[in-house]
């Protein structure tokens, strides 16, 4: 697949029109008060009705909120696609969806299940081309960063049927690509946090499930603010050792959250990304407000998903409040 020249340097005023469009659209982002009203809503239907009133799309009584939210989120990508000269500057935000599709395609051919309809629509590369390359076992036709991990994952799936390891191999390659794209686009602070939090999650999970060194070597990626070697060494000793190591890094706040609960840690991971883009609220030029808008919509969707899921499962309002993400507005 042809490699794109994504990062031709631009001046900050080249984004003036796009930033103004995004600013006007920030009006429709949910505020803390809106979220509180959703939390206090009587039930799932009441939440959906409120969302519908707020312009999220017509509520037809469906309980399939995943596709409802995906359709709404697709509008964000459509807007960014429309207003940016080169949408590939935001590839680092989206490439995880391509990786997800690659995983689906690989599992599809190995298990011989039809995976049509399971693929994410918002992607950097053409999903049909990725699926076709996998189905034909023509891995060299895949985007460059996927070629080796796809071959490796395919071999793992066919020889050992270890889906977890196959996923970890692709995740690792994706994180390395995100890091590379972030550095090239001068967004390394944000991508570094994305990679570091993913590494922390993976290390803690590996420690809890007693994974081998080889598994960890193949699933953790290199990053600047965490030592891969130390994460592996401590994960082999156990979860406590990982937390002790994290205490000495920039991510010591994660320790408390991990001890608290998985959902608290997941929330913290999203919140530190939001914190990273928050200053873009006061920036009138450059790409930062566009990235911030994407992250803001992403956090908004996650918050709504949590509320809807909680309403279906009759969780208390306090539990929902603990889980909602920090919002951009």
């Amino acid at each position, binding site marked *: 697949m042809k490699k794109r020249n994504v990062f031709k340097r631009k001046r900050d005023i080249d984004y003036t029109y796009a*930033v103004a469009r995004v600013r006007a659209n920030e009006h429709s982002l949910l505020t803390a008060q809106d979220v509180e009203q959703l939390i206090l809503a009587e039930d799932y239907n009441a939440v959906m009705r409120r969302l519908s009133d707020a312009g999220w799309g017509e509520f037809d009584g469906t309980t399939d909120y995943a596709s409802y939210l995906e359709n709404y989120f697709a509008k964000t990508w459509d807007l960014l696609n429309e*207003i940016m000269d080169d949408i590939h500057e935001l590839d680092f935000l989206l490439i995880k969806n391509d990786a997800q599709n690659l995983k689906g395609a690989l599992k599809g051919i190995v298990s011989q299940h039809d995976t049509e309809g399971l693929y994410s629509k918002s992607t950097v590369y053409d999903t049909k081309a990725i699926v076709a390359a996998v189905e034909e076992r023509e891995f060299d036709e895949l985007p460059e960063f996927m070629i080796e991990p796809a071959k490796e994952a395919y071999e793992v799936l066919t020889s050992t049927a270890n889906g977890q390891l196959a996923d970890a191999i692709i995740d690792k390659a994706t994180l390395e690509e995100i890091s590379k794209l972030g550095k090239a686009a001068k967004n390394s602070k944000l991508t570094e946090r994305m990679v570091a939090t993913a590494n922390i999650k993976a290390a803690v999970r590996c420690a809890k499930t007693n994974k081998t060194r080889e598994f960890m070597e193949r699933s953790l990626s290199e990053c600047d603010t965490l030592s891969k070697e130390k994460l592996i060494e401590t994960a082999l000793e156990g979860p406590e050792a990982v937390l002790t190591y994290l205490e000495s890094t920039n991510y010591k706040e994660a320790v408390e959250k991990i001890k608290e609960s998985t959902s608290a840690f997941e929330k913290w991971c999203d919140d530190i990304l939001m914190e990273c883009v928050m200053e873009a609220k006061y920036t009138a030029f450059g790409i930062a407000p566009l990235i911030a808008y994407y992250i803001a919509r992403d956090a908004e969707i996650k918050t709504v998903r949590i509320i809807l899921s909680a309403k279906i499962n009759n969780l208390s309002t306090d539990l929902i409040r603990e889980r909602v993400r920090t919002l951009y507005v």
Partner: protein
Amino acid sequence: MLQSIGGLTIAIFGAAFAAILSGMGSSKGVGIVGQAAAGVITEDPSKFGKVLILQILPGTQGLYGFLAAFLIMNNMSPDMTVMQGLGYFAAGLPIAVTGFYSALWQARVAASGCSVVAKNPDQSGKAIIFAAMVETYAVLALLITILLIGKVA
């Protein structure tokens, strides 16, 4: 060498610089704010009036440059000395240079102001004031240019 060029030609250069540089600054400035304004009205056409004021602001420097060039032209004569020509050239410089830079910086403030209009339309007056502050220095430069032209004449 200056003698061979002549005072009139030097004065013409002075007038041309005043008009060209401030005009360049203004055209770029109005263009930048225009993009931001277009972004805002794509989403909400009712804000046209507010963003139009912001777009006009960086355009004034071009007008000041035109005025300075016009005044220099009014004082030109074929028998001007080289010193007079140099005097007019120097008189045109304040509005030429300050006009160019102030238009660009004013455009940045005005484009930021468009974001204020987009998010908080009721605060648009403040955004206009911020952009208008930059105008002070273009006005001061024009004033000096006019006083200098008066002195040379």
